[in-house]
């Protein structure tokens, strides 16, 4: 039985007449991991802030656990763990004070789990937040977000600027949240490798809109990278129906394309070429094809 945890419908939001979100629809069901990707300024943080009631929907609707996060902040936030991109934490607090403070608001606080994380991260509980390095701030923020085992974990760029050791801690926390209690995770990231490993669903945002969204394996299957060889040397890539990005030169070209492989083969054959090799595109290739500055787009301009 699928339980809807987050439901965003046709959400739009402007700042100073600039559209930060444009008709965004997004749904999250319990026990799944949702990866949110997109260039800087694509709208990821803006979307996440709406889920937390930090921004109010002016057009469209946002529901978390069936509640409006702006009208019922306590009902929503008591069940959500949040790590913001800026790692916003009370600077003057010591780590142990932050733990006690957070615990006071969350009866489900798991003290042994919090202690275990503090030890694993080797954080000095007496240190003040403002004395912490970037990595330690993320660790402290992570403990505060996960130790009460919230039903929904929202992580905004959790790995950004962190070394491999701390990044591993973040991934562990995500795995444990889902594996242990069937809880839900929504995280945004620039590290597409991480998103590919950790997401069940992926949503690509581009210029405030959802460019694509779906089960990760389905999304990857919808895009292929194929190596194509033509009978003749070509100076420019030929226009092929479903091709999004073409790289290479001369007779051999590497193409990222959408739709069916059969359709692509036909359009290649019609240009006097053959598909030599083909595989599902990686998330990075799809991202660059849909949200990057591609050769084909540049040449069409």
């Amino acid at each position, binding site marked *: 039985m699928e339980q809807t945890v987050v439901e965003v419908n046709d959400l739009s939001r402007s700042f100073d007449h600039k559209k930060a979100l444009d008709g965004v629809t997004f749904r999250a069901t319990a026990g*799944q*991991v949702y990866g949110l990707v997109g260039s800087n300024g694509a709208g990821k943080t803006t979307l996440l802030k709406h889920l937390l009631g930090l921004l109010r929907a002016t057009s469209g609707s946002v529901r978390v656990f069936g509640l409006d996060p702006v009208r019922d902040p306590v009902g929503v936030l008591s069940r959500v763990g949040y790590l913001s991109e800026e790692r916003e934490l009370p600077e003057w607090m010591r780590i142990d004070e932050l733990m006690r403070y957070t615990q006071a608001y969350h009866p489900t606080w798991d003290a042994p789990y919090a202690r275990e994380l503090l030890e694993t991260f080797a954080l000095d509980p007496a240190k003040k937040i403002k004395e912490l390095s970037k990595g330690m701030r993320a660790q402290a923020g992570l403990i505060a977000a996960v130790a009460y085992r919230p039903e929904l974990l929202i992580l905004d760029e959790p790995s950004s600027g962190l070394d491999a050791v701390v990044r591993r801690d973040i991934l*562990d926390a995500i*795995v*444990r949240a*889902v594996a*242990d209690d069937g809880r839900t995770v929504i995280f945004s990231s620039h590290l597409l490798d991480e998103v590919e*490993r950790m997401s069940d669903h992926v949503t690509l945002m581009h210029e405030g809109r959802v460019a694509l969204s779906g089960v990760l394996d389905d999304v990857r299957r919808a895009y292929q990278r194929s190596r194509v060889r033509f009978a003749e040397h070509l100076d420019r890539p030929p226009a092929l129906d479903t091709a999004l990005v073409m790289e290479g030169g001369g007779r051999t070209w590497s193409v990222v394309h959408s739709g069916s492989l059969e359709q692509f083969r036909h359009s290649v054959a019609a240009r006097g070429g053959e598909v030599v090799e083909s595989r*599902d595109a990686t998330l990075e290739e799809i991202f660059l094809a849909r949200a990057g500055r591609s050769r084909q787009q540049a040449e069409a301009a």
Partner: protein
Amino acid sequence: MDITINLADGVPIYRQILNQVKYLVASGLLQPGEELPPIRTLALQLKVTPNTIVKAYGELEASGVIQKRQGSGTFVSEGRPQQVALRERRRVIEQRIDALLAEAHQLNFTADDILRMVRERKAAMDETGADPAEVTKEVNR
């Protein structure tokens, strides 16, 4: 359990896990009745979403390669392993042959050329008394 994930592969992660477990069973590196790591453990080890492991284990169970025992974990199936092993061993080799044939075509060799070259290489290996396991390590480097 010795499993690695390759993101550049093009193959979905759950399928990579599935294939590797089948390979381990087929080659006897996982024995009938041997326990597989719990979903949580493998997810932490591979740094992948647990649902991927759930999917892989689900398919392995559906095809009879592994069995979940109520409350005590997941184990390699007993009783059917020989058939599973043979099928999987064939599949592994067939995949390599398909890849070889595709590459041969690209390099303008016919299937007959390949057959001839297989016999030549085998004869050379027999002459030098090469250990197939050592050869595999060299090829995969």
